[in-house]
């Protein structure tokens, strides 16, 4: 084996390459450039693909393990089964109904809790009187985890929609309240003074200076709230529900349909991601004046 190899290595062909170079010379520069570009493009694509390598490999491994039979479907269904389950649920329209119910619960809870948080935050942020009256009470209530209220909530509202709405509203209230309050307190007093000397009335001061100044902080609160919103929704829906993603997964669990359980879990993840992308979009639009949020 070694002899031919050495032969190969030690056989230089200078004459041949020189001739080849000479023959190629007129077109070489452009061809070389095109090749380099192609290589650079390839490198670029490779760079973009690299982070996906591990997840794709894992899923492939998972699929193989399921097909071969190493992994019982009771533990984890094959990825293909999950996709099929998702597809049949979508085709029958069942998936869409559940997503609608869940999204409606989450968003109405956010609207009630977040709206109240925003209002009270604006109030305590603006008025010292309101702060003295309300803030310490709210800070005390804040320390109660929303989930600890579940027994009480069930006693109050039963296991109805109201209970879920209440839990979500309570949990999203505080991040928005706190961040609104601090956002308003953090507005540069110099700007407010400037506004006063330039003849702005109270309403104009609010809309032109205080609210925009507090906005970046309020949006941070919103993003926290969106994260919490889904967590609480999942818990609330697994307690008891007649529809919704939680109902879908709990129902599937009863019948050992692990593929549908997995579809539900992935749906939650997807919705959470969607909410985050939405909040980021709001930030990018509303804070486009901010050097920290400007597109590169």
């Amino acid at each position, binding site marked *: 084996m070694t002899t031919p190899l050495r032969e190969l290595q030690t056989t230089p062909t200078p004459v041949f390459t020189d001739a080849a170079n000479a023959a190629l010379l007129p077109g070489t520069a452009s061809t070389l450039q095109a090749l380099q570009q192609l290589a650079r493009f390839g490198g670029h694509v490779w760079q973009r693909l690299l982070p996906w390598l591990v997840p794709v490999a894992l899923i492939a491994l998972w699929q193989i393990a399921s097909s071969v039979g190493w992994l019982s479907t009771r533990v984890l269904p094959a990825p293909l089964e999950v996709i099929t389950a998702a597809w049949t649920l979508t085709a029958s329209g069942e998936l869409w109904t559940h997503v609608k119910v869940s999204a409606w619960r989450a968003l109405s809870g956010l609207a009630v809790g977040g709206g109240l948080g925003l209002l009270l935050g604006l109030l305590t942020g603006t008025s010292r009187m309101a702060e003295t009256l309300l803030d310490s009470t709210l800070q005390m209530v804040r320390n109660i985890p929303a989930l600890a209220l579940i027994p009480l909530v069930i006693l109050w509202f039963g296991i109805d929609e109201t209970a879920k709405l209440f839990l979500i509203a309570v949990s999203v209230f505080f991040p928005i309240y706190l961040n609104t309050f601090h956002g308003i307190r953090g507005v*540069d007093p*110099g*700007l407010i*003074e*400037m*506004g*006063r*000397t*330039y*003849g*702005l009335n109270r309403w*104009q001061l609010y809309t*032109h*200076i205080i609210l*925009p*100044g507090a*906005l970046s902080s309020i949006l941070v609160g919103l993003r926290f709230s969106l994260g919490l919103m889904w967590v609480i929704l999942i818990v609330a829906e697994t307690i008891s529900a007649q529809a919704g993603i939680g109902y879908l997964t709990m129902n599937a669990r009863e019948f050992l349909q692990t593929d549908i359980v997995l579809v539900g879990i992935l749906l939650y993840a997807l919705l959470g991601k969607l909410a985050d992308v939405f909040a980021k979009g709001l930030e990018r639009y509303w*804070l*486009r*004046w*901010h*050097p920290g949020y400007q597109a590169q």
Partner: protein
Amino acid sequence: MTDISELSEVCAGGGEALVLQGLSKCFGEREVLRNTELRVAPGQFVAIVGRSGCGKSTLLRLVAGLETATAGTVTVNDQTLNGLSSDTRIMFQDARLLPWKRVIDNVALGLPKDRHADALRVLEQVGLADRANDWPARLSGGQRQRVSLARALVHKPRLLLLDEPLGALDALTRIEMHRLIEDLWLQSGFTALLVTHDVQEAVALADRVILIEDGRIALDETIDLARPRSQGDAAFAALEKRILDRVLQKPARETTSTNPNPTESRWPGVPAHGLRWAI
């Protein structure tokens, strides 16, 4: 620059007479201004100089109506000042532009809707019409102050208060800003009150330089150099030196004797760096 007729049309307002009578201001125990008397003729450009903490900014804030006097009155055009006035505009040391409004909307702040066109015209006067749709974060320090000047002038103020507006700018930009402020002042004839720690700036711009020392007016010097003034001029230099010498004559008040380092007094014998680990 646009022609003079248009300028005066936008900024015309004339000046207001300003009279301070027995004006005093205390912050707690500390008396910042003591029984100050000052008369400023309509259209006059007055510069107030002094060491930092002498009370010159407080004087300006009293005239602006941002602070209330402990004693005495501020009279603007025969009317005793009571709070903010719509004929007075103030230009702050930091430009205080709203970062979330575009340049043009910053200039139009507080302007009635039908006068928004004026904003662009004034912006043109300060040479920034092409930056109208930029965010303030994209402007340089000098450009921000020019926007802030435009924002003040668009209201056609009859009294313009300038609170060290050029303090943070570099030397070249300052000279440019001096020209701009002087031009606009000459054309629209408002009364101007400029607080500065830079004697050269005071001499370059003002009809009158006032020195405040320990809360009192210690010097009132009329500058009758022809405009535009050149800083290389011998008379200019002599005047500047005289005022500067007068400012420096009195040694700075020892702040350490009235306000000892609290860390050291509470922890005798322990150097501050020795305490850092415990905090």
